[in-house]
């Protein structure tokens, strides 16, 4: 093991409908920098990086200013406050792609290579940035560190669920009255977030589902409203916590269309390195488009499931492994809508423009 180590703060937040990192780092950048310094002190690293998404320039400039300010006051740099511990941090702008948020792709980007994930192991903790051990944490995790010190571990672990302690910021977006970020204890139910904090769906509309965890997450229907939002429950329901985005969907949204939307995103953002993700997302999007245009066959639903299973098992990184999740969950919980598109050539929500019923085929 080498003596040189790095800590990186992953602020490459790219999920559609997620802005919790931005909210935290923009409103209180010092909290995040303090978290990074503490992380560096803990593992014995002397250099840290903030990897900030280029599309969020305010976050970058505020973090940069916080770093400069701390440097001026001697809280960053050589021999901090005479403790003998030296640590410096710098803010680096992301290369721009969604996949840069994947830790190995992020390391590649920091090293100046093309931002593509690589196969793990070796994990960054043993062989990371320039092959040195690297610790990578999200903005949110680092922002919790000062809070833990303030409250003390005892008091902090009183918050949250049995297995996951503390709070989590959720971003409520979509067809909901009050959109925004809300910090709640882990284990809060979806109902509380969507209806109490988000104010519910608009007048006259009906709640249909909520997409948790961004494009790699799942679409959970009404029966999961009382599901506690923690890592284990979400995984059991076929979704993920992910970044913590909650996209609320009402009855004006079509399940096929929303799956198509997320697949369009992942197929555009797929880096193209491994075959299952590169071709799989494209083929899956093709099938979904076919179904949404009324040209689908019942066979296609089976094909989607088979393809999704293989992509989950064989893709290189979490982007490809998570990409089928919106399709699988909508197919599981809203299968009747898919069937309506295929058999009756109608979109129950009235979103998809289906082709006229085929005529003149002699049937």
């Amino acid at each position, binding site marked *: 093991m080498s003596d040189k180590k790095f800590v990186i703060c992953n602020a490459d937040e790219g999920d559609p409908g997620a802005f919790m990192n931005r909210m935290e780092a923009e409103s209180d950048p010092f909290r995040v920098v303090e978290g990074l310094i503490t992380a560096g002190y803990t593992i014995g690293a002397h250099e840290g990086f903030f990897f900030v998404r280029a599309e969020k320039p305010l976050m970058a400039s505020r973090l940069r200013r916080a770093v400069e300010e701390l440097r001026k006051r001697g809280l960053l740099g050589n021999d901090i406050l005479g403790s003998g511990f030296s640590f410096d941090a710098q803010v680096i702008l992301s290369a721009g792609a969604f996949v840069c948020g994947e830790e190995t792709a992020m390391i590649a980007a920091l090293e100046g290579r093309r931002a593509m994930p*690589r*196969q793990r*192991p*070796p994990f960054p903790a043993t062989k990371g940035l320039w092959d040195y051990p690297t610790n990578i944490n999200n903005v949110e995790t680092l922002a919790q560190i000062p809070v833990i010190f303030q409250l003390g571990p005892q008091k902090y672990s009183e918050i949250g669920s049995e297995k996951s302690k503390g709070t989590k910021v959720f971003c409520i977006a979509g067809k909901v009255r009050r959109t925004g970020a809300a910090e709640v204890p882990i284990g809060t139910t979806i109902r509380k977030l969507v209806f109490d904090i988000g104010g519910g769906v608009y007048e006259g509309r009906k709640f249909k589902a909520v997409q948790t965890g961004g494009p790699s997450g799942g679409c959970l229907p009404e029966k999961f409203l009382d599901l506690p939002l923690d890592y284990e429950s979400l995984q059991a329901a076929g979704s993920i916590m992910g970044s913590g985005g909650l996209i609320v969907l009402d009855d004006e949204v079509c399940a096929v269309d929303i799956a198509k939307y997320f697949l369009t995103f992942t197929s555009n953002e797929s880096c193209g*390195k*491994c*075959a*299952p993700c590169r*071709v*799989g997302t*494209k*083929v899956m999007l093709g099938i979904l488009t076919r179904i949404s245009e009324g040209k689908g066959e019942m066979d296609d639903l089976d094909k989607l499931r*088979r*393809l999704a*299973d*293989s992509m*989950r*098992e*064989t*893709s*290189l990184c979490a982007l490809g*492994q998570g990409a089928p999740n919106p399709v699988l969950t909508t197919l599981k919980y809203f299968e009747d809508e898919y069937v309506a598109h295929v058999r009756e050539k109608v979109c129950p929500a009235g979103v998809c423009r289906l082709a006229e019923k085929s005529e003149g*085929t002699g049937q």
Partner: protein
Amino acid sequence: MTKVTIDGKQIDVPEATTILDAAEKLGISIPTLCYLKGISPGSVCRMCSVEVEKVARLVPSCSYPVSEGMIVKTESQRIRAARRMVLELILANHAQKCQSCNLKGGQCEFLKLSKEYWVEGLPVCNECKLSPEACYLNRGILCLGPITQLGCEGICTTHGYSCQGCRGPIRHAEDGVKAFERYGFKVEDVLWAARKYSGGSRHFDELSRSLAK
């Protein structure tokens, strides 16, 4: 040294050996496409995926290092399904390139694996032993090779007779039919010729219907 078990056989290998290398020492072959000995593995094609006990997903054996007590399986229904899907996906944007490819007569690893894993959708052209110059289509003779399911080893074409499509059209043959236009054939003529053997088949029905749209 690290002790691993692959397909029930035990072996001691140096630390950081990959599963693929360890399997090779045991005489177990794992199919690969993007792997090239002597060059750092890309883990890109996912053809060499194997099952490792206590790991949730399949892992690429070309880059995955062995660890003490690891138990690996290189053949199972699950692995076969995943490998077959990988081949099908690669084929999805490759099919029409086989016509002009110079790798014939069993040199193509992809073709070999596609046959082994029963991948549908490969045309007779992939097995045809004729050179591009000798290709019937290039000589202006209608040959149904590009849209016919392989498996016949291209007997007719090697014996001076163009493909008549007796094995039926491949799935998604629409693109193949359109490719005939490049050689100056009309779509109707191609369909007429294909009707000889496949006129009653469901695949042909679907093909002609989708072309009529």
